[in-house]
């Protein structure tokens, strides 16, 4: 029987010198639920303030204590809250499986009726299952495509958007010859999002992190080693931005927005990011290039809403979750989150036309093995380590990550 930590995780307190201060809210006689969500954009806090005000008006017995956090903070908080016995009632996060494995979560069927559940996109709800049972629901998803700077590409004599690795290399060489100060292709393998950057390149070479058929980690597979070596060849030829192993996705996005990058892997929300940056770059979007033996894929990434089992909170969390996913409220959520793919079928019918190419890619989507309890740990190790494969020996680095994954298990 697992036991939830009763005490402060002071080990962590000792090493983390930055303490986050929790707002102290007076206790109410009514049920109070604590909700913690990340800010997809700066519009999220205002959205939730409005949502919660309407929710509390409609549900007089329930008070909502809502904390909006940056992604950086919520990734740390998500772990410490459980360890410090201040588990929230509802959380929105990029992983759910290790909470499900620890038996902390309500099943999706405890929260939603069959009709609401049936409205979620099946592929996304399948990714929310642990041991065959959904313990979370998807809130939104993203897919990635190949973005290119039209002016740089076309004026460098590249007449066709690259679809294979060989064409990527050839196009990058042409761009470098024409524009020495432009980075032909940005490959951000810094810790912010290296697991995604590597997954999409490897996916186009039939490489995966986890083999669903054999139920084994395959991080150091031949296909993945080949992929990392291909990326290294681009780096060594000077066709990428400098130090890819420590370039974060945000850094690379900024370089692209300034017209300093020719080609980049980017997510469905990238157009709205470019708008935020007031970028003047005229960009095109294409399916992601693949190796000679692979086929074009996209990386589907989804986030989750999950409700934590706590005595007496079932009615309140059920009410709030259903309130959030009411069509108009959920539409507002998607709008505030900015440019993601909806997680429900009903919301998918009314999306912005800029999302359509990404939705068209979804049948070719590969996903992270997010249903494994080991995934958060493995993903964390990939983010910090995989980039060093372009500096050191690709095989050695992938072997090291594989070892961590194998030790973390396949449950």
């Amino acid at each position, binding site marked *: 029987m*697992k*036991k*939830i*930590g*009763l*005490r*402060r*995780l*002071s*080990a*962590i*307190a*000792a*090493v*983390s*010198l*930055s303490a986050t201060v929790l707002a102290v809210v007076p206790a109410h006689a009514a049920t109070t639920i604590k909700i913690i969500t990340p800010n997809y954009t700066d519009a999220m806090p205002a959205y939730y303030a409005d949502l919660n005000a309407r929710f509390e008006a409609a549900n007089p017995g329930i008070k909502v204590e809502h904390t909006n956090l940056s992604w950086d903070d919520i*990734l*740390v908080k998500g*772990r*410490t*809250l*459980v*360890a*410090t016995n201040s588990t929230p009632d509802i959380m929105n996060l990029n992983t759910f499986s*290790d*909470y499900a*494995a*620890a038996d*902390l979560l309500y099943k999706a069927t405890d929260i939603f009726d069959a009709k609401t559940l049936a409205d979620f996109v099946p592929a996304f709800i399948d990714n929310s299952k642990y041991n065959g049972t959904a313990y979370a629901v998807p809130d939104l998803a993203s897919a990635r495509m190949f973005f290119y700077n039209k002016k740089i590409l076309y004026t460098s004599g590249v007449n066709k958007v690259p679809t294979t690795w060989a064409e990527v290399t050839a196009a990058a060489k042409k761009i470098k010859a024409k524009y020495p100060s432009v980075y032909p292709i940005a490959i951000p*393998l*810094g*810790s912010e999002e290296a697991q995604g950057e590597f997954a999409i390149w490897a996916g186009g070479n039939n490489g995966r992190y986890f083999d669903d058929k054999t139920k084994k980690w395959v991080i150091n597979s031949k296909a993945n080693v080949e992929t990392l070596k291909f990326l290294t060849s681009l780096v060594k030829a*000077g066709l990428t*931005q*400098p*130090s890819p*192993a*420590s*370039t974060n996705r945000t850094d690379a996005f900024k*370089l692209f927005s*300034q017209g*300093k990058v020719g080609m980049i892997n980017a997510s469905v929300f990238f157009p709205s990011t470019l708008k935020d940056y007031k970028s003047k770059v005229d960009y095109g979007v294409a399916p992601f290039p693949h190796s000679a033996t692979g086929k074009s894929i996209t990386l589907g990434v989804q986030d989750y809403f999950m409700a934590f089992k706590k005595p007496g909170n079932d009615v309140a969390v059920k009410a709030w979750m259903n309130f959030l996913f009411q069509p108009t409220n959920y539409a507002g959520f998607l709008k505030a989150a900015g440019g993601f793919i909806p997680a429900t079928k009903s919301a998918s019918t009314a999306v912005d036309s800029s999302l359509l190419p990404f939705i068209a890619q979804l049948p070719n989507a590969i996903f992270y093995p997010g249903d494994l*309890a*080991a995934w*958060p*740990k493995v993903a*964390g*190790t990939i*983010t*910090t*380590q995989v*980039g*060093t494969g372009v*500096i050191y020996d690709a095989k050695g680095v992938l072997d*090291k990550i594989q070892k*961590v994954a194998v030790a*973390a298990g396949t449950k």
Partner: protein
Amino acid sequence: MTAISLGAKKVKNRRPANSFLSALPWIGPAILLILLVVVWPAIELIRISLTKITSAGVLEGFNGLGNYRLLFENPDLKTIAIRTVIWVLSVVFLTVIISLPLAQLINQNFPGRKFVRWAMIVPWAASVVMTSIIWKWMLELTSGEFNLTLRQLGIQHGQPVDWLRDPRFSFYVLIWVAVFVSIPFTTFVILAGLQSIPHDIVEAAQVDGASAWQVYRGIKFPLLRNSLLIATIINLINVFNSFPIIWALTRGGPGYNTDTTTTFAYKMAFVEYNMGPSTALGVINFGFIMLIVLVYLRVTKATRDQA
């Protein structure tokens, strides 16, 4: 005479038995605070390091030395430990070497001395995170002031240098920023030492015809011993614990290339969700700090006894 000495004897006899109890009302709150914010977390730290803990943060019971075993099996630990030693020693050494002449300088009387002293204390008074972020902006690849200046001066050609992301440079840049942040405190400790040197000794030496260097080498420097020791030890602790500089500038990356045991413990826990070994490393870091604190107490006691 007798009465007085008897009284003195009485007081002396009574002190060991009762002084603690009678002092308790005054030191009680402080002791309580120390128990609460130092001793209790330390005990918890050790307790959790002996507990099995999942990536979700769930505690699963006693685990013996399992977390420590996992930590020492980590192939990267050795490199990171060696780097931590290099980090601490080089930052402290450079800081002291640079601070000695600086303290000498601001001990002189010159117009505008007040402003120089004021300017020197700023990097210390400012938040370290803020300072680190300003350095991050200055050293940014394409738009940082540093690279732009190098370019305008014609020193840098071709592709700009990626100071913070290129593992060939980033660790040295971190060392420099840490030195920059440590200099003010160190300089002022040494300055205090310089000002406590009696004028008459210096004057006597000068009358005897000692050169400025001889005065410094033979009189001032030896008398700075205590200030130097204290500055060194406090810097050792600060630099060893230094988290914000590394985290704000490089996050210890790429890989673990600029991690010290402090940032590594955090990275294991909150980026790689590898909680167990991280708690073990937390205990080891804590033990190391305790060791330096003991040395500090020894040194200050020695200097106090000397005085």
